[in-house]
């Protein structure tokens, strides 16, 4: 049972961690782009 739980924790947890990383990275990039637009309008 321990092996089964470990496999699912790694699989599901891995997808969650990767998805959160993507969300944070996208947010950071959007912020950087919008800050660039504010400091350089036009």
């Amino acid at each position, binding site marked *: 049972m321990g*092996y*089964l739980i470990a*496999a699912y924790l790694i*699989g599901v947890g891995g997808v969650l961690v990767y998805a959160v990383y993507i969300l944070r990275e*996208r947010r950071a990039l959007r912020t950087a782009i919008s800050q660039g637009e504010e400091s350089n309008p036009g």
Partner: protein
Amino acid sequence: MPPSSPDRVIPTLHRASTVALGVCAIIYGILVVNAPLDSEQGVIQKILYIHVPCAMAAYLGFLLTAIGGGLYLWKRDERFDRFAASAAEVGVFFCALVLVTGPIWGRGTWGTWWSWDLRLTVTLLLFLVYLSYLLLRSFTEGTERTARFAAVYGIAGLAVIPLNYFAIDLAGGRSIHPQNLEGGSLGVGMVMPFAMGAVTAIVAFSHLLLGRIDIARLRAQLAEREAEREMRGGDGSPWDI
């Protein structure tokens, strides 16, 4: 300036895939918990419902890497190169999950974490081929030459997939890895959790891929803006000459 089509479509699809993934994950969880126990392996056989779907997602990632590479060589459009790189990254991620869940299953059934069996070895090779693809790209990011080389490499790497799939047949009965799944090879009540596992893995793959493509698009947009700013004469700091 109104946002261009990918600026709106990719984030919208990404949000929709989040909802789809949540729904699939709940159904998948219920089906796996209620799946019947295997008469020989017992509860550990349920690793099948995560191990094989991850392998399918990894294959899909590498196939899309080759398709993206082929389209880049044909159209010379940067977006296809970004698509190929994103698919490779998500494919490598799922291949890593295969290489982690497999040994856990092996330890529970064969009593060993790893064996230099042909299927296991070729899976490791497949992982290393596309990990190298990502590393080579990261060392020489951004040039047209890199994109061309990566496209050819991504297409050539695809040759490992049939070798991986047919490794058990090629081993001629000496493989300790179970046979590939075929119609009717799953027990009663095991088809639905397996099918739902495959659907969930593909939805998870799509969700991660869309997010990863969006990151690549935003990075390119940011680099373009920075290049434009530099062209206009630096960032206005007193150090600009």
